[in-house]
């Protein structure tokens, strides 16, 4: 809460005031909401009951697959079976580049690829995923994902965007692998909230 204090001079001049920080409330910035570090493999990570105290959300992930599938997927508010997501992709692997996209045909948002169990050992993919205007109830939700990994001789970088065609405020984020695989131990998932003053 911002405090407003009138000074003697402001009372005298009938118009001056100064805004003071209460030293408790943070008006804007990035705030850690929750973190999950896997000590053993797991199929899904779910952030539930996300407080609507923020303007945007950001998910940061370091991940590796425990088996053959390595496609990172995200869905919101348990909406994971319809066709409410669209996706777009730009990627490069050091020797070639490609792009693709699809609209209205996906039950989840595909946000990037990550190393599988047969990849170079101890390699993980890093993600920064922004979920914009996550709590606005007058617009569909857009997602921007930057991810990549290096496999000591190969690798890739991907810039993806996705759309969730719902105007509901996001309360729940489910993260999982799209081909039925588990995340390997030492994968890491962190949710941040971004406040704009």
């Amino acid at each position: 809460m911002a405090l407003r204090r009138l000074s003697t001079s402001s009372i005298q001049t009938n118009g001056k005031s100064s805004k003071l920080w209460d030293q408790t409330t943070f008006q804007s910035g990035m705030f850690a909401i929750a973190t999950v570090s896997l000590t053993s493999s797991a199929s899904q990570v779910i952030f539930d009951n996300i407080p609507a105290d923020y303007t945007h959300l950001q998910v940061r992930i370091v991940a590796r697959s425990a088996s053959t599938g390595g496609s990172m997927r995200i869905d919101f508010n348990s909406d994971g079976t319809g066709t409410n997501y669209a996706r777009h992709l730009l990627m490069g692997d050091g020797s070639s580049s490609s792009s693709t996209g699809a609209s209205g045909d996906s039950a989840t948002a595909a946000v990037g690829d990550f190393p599988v169990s047969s990849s170079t050992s101890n390699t993980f993919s890093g993600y920064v995923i922004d979920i914009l205007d996550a709590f606005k109830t007058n617009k569909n939700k857009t997602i921007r994902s930057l991810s990549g990994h290096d496999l000591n001789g190969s690798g890739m970088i991907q810039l993806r965007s996705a759309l969730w065609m719902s105007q509901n405020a996001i309360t729940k984020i489910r993260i999982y692998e799209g081909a039925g695989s588990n995340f390997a131990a030492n994968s890491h998932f962190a949710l941040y909230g971004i406040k704009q003053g």
Partner: protein
Amino acid sequence: MSETKIIVNCATGEQTIVPLTTAELAQRDQDAAAAAEAQAEREAAAEALAALKASARAKLIAGTPLTEEEAAVLVI
């Protein structure tokens, strides 16, 4: 393979490890089958394209006529 999910209650910070439900396990199986099918299609398409290119190159070197498909993979 552990068939579990980790649920974080962001309001309380509590983390719980929960087994996947029967429906979620069935969905995983469907996802795995669909991914395998898509992968097979991608590999088949890549192999077909490589074969087409090889055929086009060989005909070009030999001076024999190319098919429409072969010409398309060589000329942008």
